[in-house]
């Protein structure tokens, strides 16, 4: 099967298909027309041979009939009968005379013989070459015409014979045979065919076989199927022929009119050739037309393709020129509009790219100047943990030049004991994408080029991009900080030990003073003046206050050391519980404490408890002279923080001294008015600050005070 070249260009395909179609149509029409013409030619020829055959068959038997009559007349002649009866001895002259009567005109082509019943030739006159070789078969009683016979190869003859009968009985006693030579010559043929026309062959021959003649010479006869007659047929006889045979009445002969089939169909073939020429011209013109149409379609397409290719390769000014108003022209103008839009957006994009590139360069320069001048080490690594960036700070810190480390593993910067953890960390992050160190600051140790270890603080970030994952670390050498921290820790520990000692050592003598003062009063009170008893009371009172002071100081210093244990704290419940205790502590004095619903906070429950306790105690203390004493605990949201407040309608304070409220031992009221050590609010401030919150107060003298503190929400 032929694979059609579908991938050919339209310019080739369209004319090809159109021409093929045209050719097919023309061929079909040509074939049909030729069949018609051929059929008509054959029909005409058939009519012609039928007509001619009929004419000749009517014409030809006349000669034979005459000859039969002549022969019969001769046989019935009494002289001839006498001649036969006598065995040729008598009446020869008679016979001659009778013979002359019938054969005067055809003498050269004629022979007449008389035979007796015993097969003896009694008489022979005329052309002796026609003489019979043997006694002819006994004829029937009437005169008979024989089939043609070939004599001496080129001679064609036939006999007409009639029986000689006994005058009385009618018994056959002999016969008269007239042998006639058929006149074969060009002239004879032309005479006969002149009537029919030069293209026609006329044939005469035996109905049951050879020989046949065309009247000029002996020719092979037509095949048996052509000799059936009735309808014109085609057959082979030295070429394809078309003809019709008919028997000649009164003879065993047949006549045939024959046309050469080639000659017969020559005009149709000529017609076909002419038509084919015209068809070829039509196909050629059609193909040219199709080619022209396809060119008209494909030329603009070619231009569009070329222009599109030019645009694709960057020549945005490219335009196409397709004149007219048809679809192609519209396509061309649409293309031009599109090209214009492409150019515009390309220019706008280039402008943006240039702008962004500029901004990016500036940002990069800024970033570079930061990283280049930073004291911190800034190091980047790829997903395999190999160093890809190394700033001067890093070179200074670790002692390696940039060229020493780029492409080498990060582990070279770590002491042995961290290396395995580091590899596992990277592996785990690459597998789970779950950061453990990322986004936080961790303290580790680094190793310098000389092998010395130093403490460092690392902030790590990871970035994923198409190029893969990369890590960036900012490393700060915290050797100095660690040293200061250590020193601070030692100082704190010393202070702590000192405060313990103080607390212990101060309490014991204080207890002794108090105890022995009581003993003095109890055991020897009777011996004392009232003034002595009063002085003992003053000692008693002051030792109590001193004890309280020491206890408060201890709990204040303890706050600095205690670890924060943060958890979710239900502030509403906590404040309610404390308010209950404060109410109990107030005894009979009614306290109106309002507690709004408070959001939960995140913090150390014990510490928050102490802070709230101190604030409520404070509020209760300073509302002592108010009736009713009103205290309100509420909150308001402030971003991720919650602002809690404790508001009272108590003695308030002079806002000029608001900043002093939270200092240790700071008191804004005289001890006779409101007792206290001046540590409670300092404790509140310390607790809130340790929770990362703020604390402040608002108030007016004799117009109440409000204490605020902030805490992170429970979910933060």
């Amino acid at each position, binding site marked *: 099967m032929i694979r059609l070249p579908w991938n050919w260009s339209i310019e080739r395909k369209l004319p090809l298909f159109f021409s093929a179609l045209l050719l097919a149509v023309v061929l079909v029409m040509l074939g049909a027309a030729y069949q018609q013409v051929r059929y008509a030619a054959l029909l005409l020829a058939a009519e012609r041979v039928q007509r001619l055959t009929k004419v000749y068959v009517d014409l030809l038997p006349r000669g034979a009939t005459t000859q039969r009559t002549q022969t019969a007349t001769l046989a019935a002649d009494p002289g001839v009968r006498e001649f036969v009866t006598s065995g040729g001895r008598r009446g020869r002259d008679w016979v001659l005379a009778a013979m002359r009567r019938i054969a005067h005109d055809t003498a050269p082509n004629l022979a007449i013989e008389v035979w007796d019943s015993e097969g003896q030739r009694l008489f022979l006159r005329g052309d002796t070459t026609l003489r019979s070789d043997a006694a002819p078969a006994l004829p029937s009683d009437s005169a008979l015409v024989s089939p043609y016979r070939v004599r001496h190869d080129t001679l064609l003859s036939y006999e007409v014979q009639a029986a000689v009968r006994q005058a009385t009985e009618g018994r056959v006693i002999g016969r008269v045979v007239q042998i006639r030579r058929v006149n074969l010559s060009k002239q004879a043929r032309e005479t006969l065919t002149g009537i029919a026309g030069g293209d026609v062959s006329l044939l005469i021959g035996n109905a049951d076989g050879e020989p046949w003649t065309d009247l000029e010479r002996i020719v092979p006869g037509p095949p048996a199927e052509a000799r059936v007659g009735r309808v014109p047929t085609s057959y082979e006889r030295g070429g394809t022929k078309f003809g019709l045979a008919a028997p000649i009445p009164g003879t065993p002969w047949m006549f045939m009119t024959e046309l050469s089939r080639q000659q017969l169909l020559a005009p149709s073939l000529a017609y076909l050739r002419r038509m084919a020429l015209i068809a070829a011209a039509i196909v050629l013109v059609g193909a040219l037309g199709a080619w022209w149409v396809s060119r008209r379609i494909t030329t603009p397409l070619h231009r569009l393709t070329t222009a599109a290719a030019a645009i694709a390769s960057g020549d945005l000014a490219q335009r196409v020129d397709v004149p007219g108003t048809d679809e192609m022209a519209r396509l061309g103008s649409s293309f031009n509009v599109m090209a214009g839009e492409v150019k515009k957006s390309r220019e706008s994009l280039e402008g943006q790219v240039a702008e962004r590139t500029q901004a990016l360069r500036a940002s990069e320069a800024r970033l570079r100047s930061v990283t280049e001048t930073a004291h911190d080490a800034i190091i980047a690594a790829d997903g395999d943990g190999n160093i890809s960036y190394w700033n001067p700070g890093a070179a200074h810190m670790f002692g390696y030049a940039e060229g020493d480390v780029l492409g080498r593993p990060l582990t070279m910067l770590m002491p042995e004991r961290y290396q395995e953890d580091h590899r596992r960390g990277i592996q785990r992050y690459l597998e789970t994408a779950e950061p453990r160190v990322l986004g936080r600051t961790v303290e580790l140790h680094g190793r310098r080029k000389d092998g010395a270890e130093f403490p460092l603080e690392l902030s790590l970030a990871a970035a994923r991009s198409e190029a893969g994952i990369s890590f960036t670390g900012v490393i700060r050498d915290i050797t100095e900080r660690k040293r200061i921290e250590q020193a601070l820790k030692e100082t704190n520990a010393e202070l702590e030990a000192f405060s313990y000692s103080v607390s212990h050592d101060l309490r*014991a003598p204080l207890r002794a003073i108090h105890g022995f003062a009581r003993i003095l009063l109890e055991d020897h009170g009777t011996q004392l003046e009232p003034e002595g008893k009063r002085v003992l009371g003053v000692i008693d009172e002051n030792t109590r206050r001193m004890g309280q002071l020491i206890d408060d100081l201890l709990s204040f210093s303890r706050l600095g050391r205690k670890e924060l244990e943060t958890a979710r704290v239900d502030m509403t419940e906590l404040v309610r519980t404390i308010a209950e205790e404060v109410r109990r502590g107030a005894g009979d004095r009614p306290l109106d404490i309002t507690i709004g619903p408070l959001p939960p906070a995140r913090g150390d429950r014990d510490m928050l408890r102490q802070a709230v306790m101190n604030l409520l105690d404070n509020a209760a203390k300073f509302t002592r002279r108010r009736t009713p004493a009103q205290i309100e605990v509420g909150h308001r949201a402030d971003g991720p923080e919650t602002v809690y407040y404790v508001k009272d309608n108590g003695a308030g304070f002079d806002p000029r001294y608001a900043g002093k409220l939270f200092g240790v031992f700071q008191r804004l009221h005289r001890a006779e008015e409101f007792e206290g050590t001046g540590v409670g609010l300092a404790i509140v401030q310390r607790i809130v600050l340790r929770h990362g919150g703020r604390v402040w107060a608002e108030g007016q003298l004799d117009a109440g005070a409000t204490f605020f503190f902030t805490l992170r929400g429970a979910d933060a």
Partner: protein
Amino acid sequence: MTQPHEVEILLVEDNPSDAELTLRALKQRNLANQVFVCHDGAEALEFFFGDGSHALREIGVVPKVILLDLKLPKVDGLEVLRRLKEEDRTKRIPVVVLTSRPEEPDIARAYRLGANSYIVKPVDFEAFARAVSDVGLYWLLLNHPPR
């Protein structure tokens, strides 16, 4: 009620004022009859584990309760506590820690070593006397030690 020479309470206290005040508090509840005072940790250990040179050291003298200060000269109170609770002979004696230091780590350590109570000595004499006498009363009269 008590047999002669039977030590009911052993007070280990280096501060003579505190010792006197303690004794006075116990006396107010009539619990001071058989109180013996050790003035430092070494003396307390001598009392129990010494070679017999101690004045009141007698076989079979076992106090019903020990009141133990933590901050002691020579041998620290916690060390005394540890030794007492290590010995089979002494580990069942209730030990009440009396101290001026209300410190969580000390309290936790004392209980871990087997202290039975932990009392912070108040500065206020009445409160102190009440605490001491309550403890004495509890451990001497109300608590039933295993036989």
